């Protein structure tokens, strides 16, 4: 683990540790009350879920069309981030919805497309783990499908009828609620950067291990 990763992880851990106090100090939302506090973890993880899918897709495109092997390590790392932050989003969302909407889940455009995106990256990881030779290129193709889904998810709440709040909510938040939100966004972003870099490094090490085994066989 590099020195930068250690600093990022320590800072993110400290910020997440104090975040419940900062979130608790934020005012209650008038109609939802206490349950709206889930928003401060749900929204940053949802953003990072989409950013991870974006990074995985772009890295896969560079790997496929630019023939750069290092891009594959970043694609795999970002795909794992998409699965981690995706499961956080898909679990915290229904916990909030149960109280705010009265139901755990609704098959609208935003929720359904988010679930599909998460399943694409779960399939990507399974393919990379058990797919054998050639799974890197096949996986890169799948990640491009994931990438195509990202703008669709982002605009879905503004285009189709849904219970999910629209994208205009965040810019209109009062400072007392926006402050804790951006604090959590920064903490999650630091965590994301540290984990992404560590996971990419792990993949590069695995490639190195394969090369060492091949060299050993040839000798």
């Amino acid at each position, binding site marked *: 683990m590099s020195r930068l990763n250690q600093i990022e992880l320590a800072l993110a851990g400290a910020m997440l540790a104090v975040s419940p106090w900062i979130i608790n100090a934020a005012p209650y939302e008038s109609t939802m009350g*206490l349950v709206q506090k889930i928003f401060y973890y749900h929204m940053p993880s949802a953003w990072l879920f989409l950013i991870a899918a974006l990074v995985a897709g772009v890295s896969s495109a560079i790997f496929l069309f630019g023939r750069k092997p290092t891009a594959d390590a970043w694609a795999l790392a970002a795909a794992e981030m998409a699965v981690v932050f995706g499961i956080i989003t898909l679990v915290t969302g229904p916990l909030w919805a149960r109280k705010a909407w009265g139901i755990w889940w609704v098959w609208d455009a935003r929720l359904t497309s988010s679930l599909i995106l998460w399943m694409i990256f779960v399939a990507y990881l399974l393919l990379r783990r058990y797919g054998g030779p050639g799974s890197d290129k096949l996986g890169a193709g799948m990640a491009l499908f994931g990438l195509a889904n990202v703008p669709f998810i982002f605009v879905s709440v503004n285009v189709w009828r849904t219970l999910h709040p629209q994208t205009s909510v965040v810019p209109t938040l009062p400072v007392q609620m926006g402050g804790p939100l951006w604090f959590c966004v920064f903490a999650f972003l630091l965590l994301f950067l540290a*984990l992404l870099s560590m996971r990419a490094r792990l993949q590069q090490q695995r490639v190195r291990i394969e090369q060492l085994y091949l060299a050993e066989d040839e000798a």
Partner: protein
Amino acid sequence: MRFCRTLFLAAAVIAGALAGPVPPAFAQPKPSPDEFVPLAEAPPEEQIPAINLVAAAYGFVWIVVVGYVWSLGKRLQQAEAEIAALERKAR
């Protein structure tokens, strides 16, 4: 005359049956709401305290993050140890 009396009795019995309380088994089911119903009006057994949901959400996030960081750290250590062992063998 007898027919009229029978008809009157039958009408009275039917009217009495319709006017009285309907047994629950034959009662018309309430239509399920297809519009927004405030949760405060939901029956108590359908209401979950918000604190339980908030605690579950925050607890889940912490478990996933700590678990993933631990798993990634362990995998990195294993890979570094394997590389070191292979490089020693190669020399």
